[in-house]
């Protein structure tokens, strides 16, 4: 076991773990941040997506020993009030069915919107390809990203 101090959601968190422990399990079991989900364990489903220095990353493939001083953002830290444009749009359009994948979808989509504030369907499809939704709410996820882009643009337009 080793001692780690990681910057997660703008705060330093300390915990003990073996160096190979995936960030996913440190978040879930050690820190109680369970919004990041376990789906496949090998980076194929996107349910565990977090931002590491702003890059959407599968936390199940990220050993805690590799995080270092990087800034980690999880769904719990995406917006201080849980009101990121994507979180608003998801509720407005009633995107979730079971909801299990939606935090991962949101984290991937948030990174997309930061790079491309007004993405096309094709850009959305490419960016979201690694996030499975078993309930297949894909049409609403796509619509939700467009809606979030509108909400963000409106917010930016305000003085």
């Amino acid at each position: 076991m080793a001692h780690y101090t990681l910057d997660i959601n703008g705060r330093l968190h300390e915990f003990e773990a073996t160096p190979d422990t995936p960030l996913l399990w440190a978040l879930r079991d050690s820190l109680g941040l369970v919004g990041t989900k376990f789906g496949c364990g090998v980076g194929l489903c996107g349910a565990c997506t977090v931002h590491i220095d702003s890059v959407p990353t599968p936390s199940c493939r990220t050993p805690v020993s590799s995080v270092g001083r990087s800034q980690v953002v999880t769904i719990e830290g995406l917006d201080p009030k849980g009101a990121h444009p994507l979180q608003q749009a998801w509720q407005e359009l009633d995107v979730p069915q079971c909801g299990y994948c939606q935090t991962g979808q949101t984290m991937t989509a948030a990174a997309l919107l930061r790079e491309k504030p007004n993405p096309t369907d094709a850009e959305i499809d490419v960016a979201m390809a690694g996030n499975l939704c078993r309930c297949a709410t894909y049409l609403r996820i796509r619509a939700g990203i467009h809606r979030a882009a509108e909400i963000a643009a409106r917010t930016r337009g305000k003085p």
Partner: protein
Amino acid sequence: MKRASRGLPAAPGIGRRAFLRQTSVGAGGLLLGMSLGPTGVVVTASTAAMGAAAATAFQPSVFIRIAPSGVVTLISKQPEIGQGIKTSLPMVIAEELEVNWKDVVVVQGDLDPAYGSQTAGGSTSTPNNYNDFRRLGATARTMLVQAAAQTWKLPPGECVAADGAVHHRASGRSLGYGPLATIASTLPVSDAATVKLKDPSDFKLLGTRIGGVDNAAVVTGEPLFGIDVKLPGMLYAVYDKCPAFGGRVVDANLDAIKTLPGVRDAFVVAGTANLTGLMPGVAIVAESTWAAFSARRQLRVSWDEGAAAGQSWDGFVARAQALARQPGATLLRKDGDPAAAFASATKTVEAAYTYPFISHANLEPQNCTAWFRDGAFEIWAPTQNPAAGQSLVAGTLGVPKDRITLHITRSGGGFGRRLSADFVVEAAAIAQRVGAPVKLTWSREDDLRHDHYRAGGFHFLRGALDARGELSGWHNHFVTFANRIARDGRAALQPGSGASLSGDEFPGRWVSNCLLEQTPIECSIPMGPWRAPGSNVFAWVVQSFIDELAHAADRDPLAFRLALLGERDVVPATVDRGLPYSVARMKRVLREVADKAGWGRRRLPRGQGQGIAFHFCHRGYVAEVAEVTVSKAGTLKVDRVVVVCDIGAQIVNLSGAENQVQGSIIDALGALMFQEVDIQRGRVVQGNFSDYPMIEMSDAPSRVEVHFLKTDHPVTGLGEPAFPPLAPAVCNAIYAATGKRVRQLPLRRIDLRWS
């Protein structure tokens, strides 16, 4: 209808434990139990022996509580698995209760006999509860109106409930439900059978778009799911089962495992012979999920693999082909003289349709948390079928049901997988030995390799066309899969869930010379219900072969289908537990979908095509048109799907309903295109999404247009009926586009190139 009776205990269905919990939650002066019977609602009342200060909340049933603050708490008894039931059934109560949805708090109920059936399966949650829940809401509303009338000394007929208050229009007076709750709690319970229901044309909430009640928690990542459960002192477990189904543990390196970091215990669970119960295995219990997962990589188990090791998909295929040359083991239907119809046919078409086993692949892997204390279990389970979990634990581990408390968590997808309770009994068996709360988490590989699969199958079909191009003969020899089970002390072959053809399966009852027969192949592969069991493949087989026959007769596929359905109104069932089939409803959805999709109105270039299909299941009538483009290189893109559903008189939540249908369409497309479980040496080959690909966003059709017909028929559920017609609609469209007939799934194995 029983009148309210007072005293403890309440209804026979309410155990002491349930009663006490209700009273502690409710803190109300009046407590009513209710059991939901097939004939209607039975309401029984009992006065809780509580302190004077508690007599403030109004709790006219175990599902409804109105606090003096006016907050309305509704219990959702059904498990939420993504079908939206935690939102939609409370909406039904709220509509009749005349409360504003924003004032409603929905709480998930535990497994409790007071709630009646709590199984979420077969798209039954809505039809089984809709009418009763309307009556519940109306009963409470009636009592609140009475309370106001009594306060004002007016006839109740002059008082009207709306927006969480009772109003007297003439005098302009209003009293909120909060202040009325205390008075209402002293009134005798209104008779639910005679209480006045709202005219559906006055509905304000039902039929509108309401977001899921847990959406805010979902999008912010709050703990909701079974896998999110955390208890003080909780340990984390994995459970290793034999890769070949039914294998038993001979030996394992338990001593070495126990020395690994973070491991608290490792032991063999003997298990039972029940393929969908507690299978033998090795448990590792550790201080974290990762410690358990890591230790498992060092686990070495010697297995007695048993009979399964000799089974493979290739062997099943060879066996099915041999069986196809023989008469079926079971005759399901014989009408007319099929042999003569084929002998005199103008044209005969023969085809074999094959589909593989597939997995449910819930995105939340199976998991369960259990705590065994003082001879009793407390269980937290992401389950569709909490009662089955309790029963399996009781029967397997020898703990009476009334010593097993089961909390229903949200499930990360159901699709039928969580109707089984294997993961519940595994967690319980481990917890019984450990003496601390234990969360069992399956890996993705466990989940894909120890599913209760949708059975594969083989249909050997012949169709006869007469001189007029009408379907004069139909023969299906269905070769299916069965497990050997003990029934009444004797061995029997039990076909998998959804792996039995009904004698009434369309076009049985329609073709005058019809032969349906079935032969099982024995296997050790556990099988279970998978979204729209049976229908999810039978619709593909039947509606594809009907398309073949339409083309063989040189007739339009829609016209051929309408002619086949014929002119009868309702066709009665002819088999045990069969259902009558409304031809009128089916023809209407078929005509509507053709109209909305512009069926046959455009000439499409080669490589593009439209396909049509219909299916009746789960009391829903659904027809679909798919429009596809197949590139010369054989790449399929489904451009548009039009769906018309007749699921009765009322859509409960339009947003949820549309989401279910669109999800069903894309899920069905994913199963059609990608899903396949291969069996070799009695084990599943695939282990993760690398070799068991699931549909991604880019494969979803850009347009899925959903239309609901409002008809004068009972309200029914929508988790399943939109699924089955999609695969044949797409395959029929592929034929129209390319001339290639798909008779084997999944599509990714099929060469669709054309030139």
